[in-house]
């Protein structure tokens, strides 16, 4: 099954809204690592060998624990996902203190997501990944922001060969 088909099947709203695949599927890093621009490690709390989590943080896996890691990366809570020049925002998805996903905002206002072990994608709307389908992510529950750091990956994602 092709990558687009696998994504479309899981995220019907995304399929309707449109998106661009910006990398090959890769199981070496996940959405949290993508926000940290760490393409070598799967960021995940808990005592699981092969996963990475900053030593300074606890091993809990609640939404609160994930928000803590985004704080560790320099993000703080903000009111919305509106584009602000010089500011990088992230959208945190979850519900009932359960973390589901995180996407970061590109300089053009669109969003970039690493979909688990699937690809990175660029999607126009942060809410395109959420819905009531069995695989769709829970809604955005928090926006966070930090000063935008200049680096190539933030703008382009990993370009397909």
């Amino acid at each position, binding site marked *: 099954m092709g990558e687009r088909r696998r994504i479309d099947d899981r*995220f019907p709203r995304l399929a309707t809204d449109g998106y661009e695949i910006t990398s090959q599927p890769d*199981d*070496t890093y*996940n959405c949290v690592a993508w926000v940290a621009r760490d393409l070598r490690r799967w960021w995940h709390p808990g005592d*699981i*060998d*092969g996963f990475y989590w900053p030593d300074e943080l606890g091993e809990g896996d609640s939404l609160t624990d994930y928000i803590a890691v985004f704080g560790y990366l320099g993000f703080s809570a903000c009111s919305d996902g509106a584009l602000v020049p010089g500011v990088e925002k992230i959208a945190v998805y979850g519900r009932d203190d359960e973390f589901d*996903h995180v996407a970061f905002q590109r300089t053009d206002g669109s969003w970039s997501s690493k*979909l688990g072990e699937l690809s990175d994608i660029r999607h126009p709307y942060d809410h395109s990944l959420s819905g009531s389908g069995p*695989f769709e992510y829970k809604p955005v529950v928090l926006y966070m922001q930090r000063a935008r750091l200049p680096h190539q990956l933030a703008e382009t994602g990993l370009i397909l060969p």
Partner: protein
Amino acid sequence: MIPMAQEGELLVGSGSFRSAGPIGLTMPVSRDPRGPDRSLLWMAYDSHATWAAVTLNAAQAFGWTTTVTTREYADASERPVYLVDQFAAEAVADGWERDNLHRSALANAARQPAFQRLVKLGGSAISLALKRLGGSQRPLWLLFLSVTTTDRPAAGAETVEDAAEAWRRWGRRHRYI
């Protein structure tokens, strides 16, 4: 001496026993719980959740030495339950991978029914997990192994690749794969 079949020749058919010819079949009838596990990597299964095919060359590759005649193996009491179990394990594993393919946070995966079903298979599931560490959903199987085994062969590994390789070395050393 085990007679050899051509590559891909079917020795056992789905659902009912079917001899490929007037030859004996070597099967892992050992009660050593690890014996069946090793054989499973070479089984092919059809979509009817029964059992499907074994090639003689695969049997020889594994060095199976217990010769079972077709008639003996056709006996229901000899038909290994683990064949069906393993088919189920493969199907459950496929479903578990499918359900979590797009997940970055995997804690929930260990609470899903599929995970619990795999855990109940014991050594078979460990072999299966180690085999799937060669695939494209390694984080999921690293999670599985970390929860279901007490050994920590990948202690200190910070990358999926390093941990997967450490686990597979461990699996070979313990003859799971």
